[in-house]
């Protein structure tokens, strides 16, 4: 028996089979790295699935610049700015994390405490920003209609001409051009004004007939389809006649996005957005929890007594990994 049982060396910390440290890494650190490998494969599988779906619908995929355009407290359209801020916050919190690890190597408890706190604050700002981003995406900004053959039609108005004399169209909201009365006296059903056990999802304040008549009554409005003009990399604008033809097939008014409909285009785009950024956000959230636990351990002096701050290093690895994943999510959701 003795030959196949590792003998514990009392003097050294136990690493599975005694004082031996394969690769010169401690057990915890090595297992964190191997966990990160498996987690990286999970994330890359999600992103690869996103890539497959995007290639499958390459001629109609939503254009990120037209989807994520808002900045809190400011009106107008500023694509990229807010996610750039989020990326910056996450990189900054990565830096404070690595500074905490560095201070840990010098057994500087006060510095570790401060840097851990800054890291936690950065993480909270990031998760808060993501919540805001989700909220904006779910509420939507313009509204669109969905046709019987499953296509999303958006409404645009000419806003100027480019240097070659081609018209530039800008998307407008339903509220900007729909006029008149909805015509069918339909009201939102609530438990208070009808059958108490019946509930219904939110209905639009406009009716389909109202949108169609507003379109017909306003010659400035032109319809944009999901189809991408691959030469210009822009969505196709339909002529007034063709637009009316498509609009006649309207089945549903879509305002905002959820797992079933998406005013920005393909529903599966919204599904992937929620799934991937949600999974990443959950990682950030759990990272914050780990950081808070370690933060309090630092304060009460657990690692001071232990003689090293390796735990800070291990949660640090996890935290940097979260940053690493975000770098890829940022590229493939917002840039490419």
């Amino acid at each position, binding site marked *: 028996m003795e030959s196949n049982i590792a003998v514990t060396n009392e003097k050294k910390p136990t690493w599975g089979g005694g004082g031996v440290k394969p*690769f*010169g*890494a401690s057990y915890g650190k*090595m297992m964190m*790295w*191997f966990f*990160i*490998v498996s987690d*990286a*494969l999970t994330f*890359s*599988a999600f*992103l*690869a699935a996103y*890539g*497959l779906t*995007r*290639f*499958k*619908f*390459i*001629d109609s995929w939503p254009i990120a*610049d037209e989807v994520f355009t808002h900045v809190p407290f400011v009106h107008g359209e500023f*694509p*990229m*700015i807010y996610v*750039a801020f989020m990326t*910056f916050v996450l*990189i*900054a919190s*990565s*830096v404070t*994390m*690595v*500074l905490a*690890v*560095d201070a840990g*190597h*010098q*057994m500087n408890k006060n510095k570790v405490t401060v840097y851990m706190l800054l890291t936690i604050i950065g993480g909270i700002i990031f998760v808060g920003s993501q919540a805001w981003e989700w909220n904006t995406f779910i509420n939507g900004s313009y509204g669109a209609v969905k046709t019987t053959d499953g296509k999303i039609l958006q409404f645009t108005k000419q806003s100027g001409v480019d240097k070659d004399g081609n018209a530039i169209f800008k998307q407008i909201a339903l509220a900007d051009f729909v006029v008149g009365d909805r015509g069918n006296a339909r009201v939102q059903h609530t438990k208070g004004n009808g059958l108490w056990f019946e509930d219904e999802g939110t209905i639009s304040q406009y009716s389909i007939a109202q949108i169609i008549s507003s379109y017909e009554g306003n010659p400035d409005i032109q319809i944009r*389809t999901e*189809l991408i003009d691959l*030469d210009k*990399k822009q969505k196709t604008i339909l002529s007034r006649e063709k637009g009316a033809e498509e609009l006649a097939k309207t089945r549903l008014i879509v305002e905002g996005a959820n797992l079933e409909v998406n005013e920005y285009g393909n529903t599966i785009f919204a599904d992937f957005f929620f799934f991937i950024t949600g999974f990443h956000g959950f990682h950030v959230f759990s990272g914050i929890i780990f950081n808070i636990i370690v933060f309090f351990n630092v304060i009460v002096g657990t690692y001071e007594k232990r*003689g*090293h701050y390796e735990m800070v*290093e291990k949660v*640090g*690895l996890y935290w*940097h*990994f979260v*940053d*690493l994943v975000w*770098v*890829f999510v*940022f*590229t493939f959701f*917002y*840039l*490419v």
Partner: protein
Amino acid sequence: MAHAQSHTKRIWNVFWILSAITIVEVILGIYKPDVLHLTSFLGTSPLNWLFIILTLAKAYGITWSFMHMEGEKTWFRRAVVWTAVFLIIYLVTLLLIEGDYLYSTLAPLVRW
């Protein structure tokens, strides 16, 4: 380890490099110069290739410096990096080829 030297300066350098790359990406993402955006190179636009390369550069900075991969033993580093990189390239290549096939098969059936 108790009295290891501080790497603060180097950490901040990496931070500034990563921030600069992000800023370049954002500027390119906002302005999308036609010459990079509307041309094609190896299957996608040069702009997309630029984004991917800059992303990989950032990933390298985070892994090597922040996660301190450069300080690990050679074969530990390879056990982690080679495994992940090989499997990810493999999966992404297959799925993108498959996605392209789905497009070429299904797109002709969609009437716009």
